């Protein structure tokens, strides 16, 4: 005989791959969201103990306090080189870097391009929040035209200060890059898409297909001088038109993966 019974099941809980530590991030900062997604993917793939993270310099410098894997901490911009060093001696480990836009698209441009060109079998999580969060909101390579920051106080003047860099598009021109996509963290749907992209990137690595990078559009309510909610709106209205969400390079071997 079969009885029908109502039982409560857990639909969501904090991933094991997140440490039980309170972050130092400002309320609403989507660095936390990105950490969580990485942790969820590590949980799902069961690779927490086989993963080595490379933290960069920026607000996420303490990522190693939050993501529950072995970690190293790189000089500003050099995470891809450090990750290369780790991966080359431990090729069966999953190695990922977690980098801000200042870190990866400004001071670290040389290293990221070289790692992508080498087809280095690592995964890069790239947080684009259009400014240098940690040092107090200076202009980043990703700062939008006209956007005010503490070092472009009258708004970014493209004639003098140059144009924003679309980093994943740039990286996608390299043959060594197998997966280069942009996602956003501004609403539930996009967050879910972001997680799938992170998962795909790690799957690329699992298959030895080479370099994968996921750009995540992110907010910095503190330096933008907004509430988290305003910041999400600003992201959607101003960032997405300039930084379209999409897949710029997808290796055929994973084109049809579904999660």
């Amino acid at each position, binding site marked *: 005989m079969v009885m029908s019974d109502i039982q409560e099941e857990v639909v969501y809980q904090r991933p094991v791959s997140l440490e039980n530590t309170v972050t130092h991030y*400002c309320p609403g900062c989507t660095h936390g969201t990105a950490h969580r997604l990485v942790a969820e993917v590590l949980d799902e793939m069961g690779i927490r103990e086989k993963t080595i993270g490379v933290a960069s310099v920026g607000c996420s410098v303490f990522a190693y306090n939050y993501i529950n894997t072995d970690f190293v901490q790189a000089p500003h911009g050099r995470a891809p080189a450090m990750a290369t060093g780790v991966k080359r001696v431990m090729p069966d480990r999953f190695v990922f870097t977690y980098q801000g836009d200042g870190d990866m698209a400004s001071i670290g441009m040389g290293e990221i391009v070289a790692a992508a060109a080498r087809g280095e079998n690592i995964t890069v999580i790239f947080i684009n929040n259009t400014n240098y969060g*940690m040092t107090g909101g200076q202009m980043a390579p990703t700062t939008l035209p006209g956007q005010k920051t503490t070092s472009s106080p009258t708004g970014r003047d493209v004639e003098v200060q140059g144009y924003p860099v679309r980093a994943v598009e740039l990286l996608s021109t390299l043959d060594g890059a197998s997966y280069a996509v942009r996602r956003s963290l501004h609403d539930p749907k996009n967050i879910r898409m972001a997680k799938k992209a992170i998962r795909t990137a790690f799957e690329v690595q699992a298959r030895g297909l080479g370099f994968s990078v996921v750009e995540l559009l992110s907010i910095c309510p*503190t330096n933008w001088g907004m509430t988290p909610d305003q910041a999400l709106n600003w992201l959607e209205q101003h960032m997405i038109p300039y930084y379209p969400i999409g897949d710029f390079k997808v290796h055929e071997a994973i084109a049809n993966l579904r999660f």
Partner: protein
Amino acid sequence: MQTEIVIAGFGGQGVLFAGQLLAYAAMDSGMETTWIPSYGPEMRGGTANCTVIVADEEIGAPVVRNPQAVIAMNRPSLDKYEPLIKPGGVLVVNSSMVDRTPERDDIIVVTIPGNEIAEELGSRRLTNMVLLGGLLKALPVLPLEAIEKALAEHLPERHKKLLPQNYQALRAGANYEQEAFV
């Protein structure tokens, strides 16, 4: 001769600005002065404090182990600085945010419910001025007028309309009737 004043609290309590006012006032009164901040690691929140020195000669160290006076805006600041104050020095406590009474009996303790008074005057953001008023009453290193002049000159433009309230807060702190601890 020099006087060292520490103002300590959470980020956002106006600690750094209150210290700057002291420094401006000291400078305008023709004295030597230094103002030096120290923060915790957080971008937002966390601890913030500053040391202000007012002197009549070239100032050496901008920080000292045992300051002459301390404004403690919250409990952690009280716990940290109470033991360090020079004997005979002054401790101003924001009793609105502190749930214990100070223990030292070799210093002058001034206890002011800063938040309450500030809120009565129209904004919790005036708390720092209330306590600063209290300090200057107990430790007349500078006249209140000098602080008011500094306020008039350095209050950010967008807050200039609040100048009268700021004056009031200073006076309220200075005039607050309290039980004498010593």
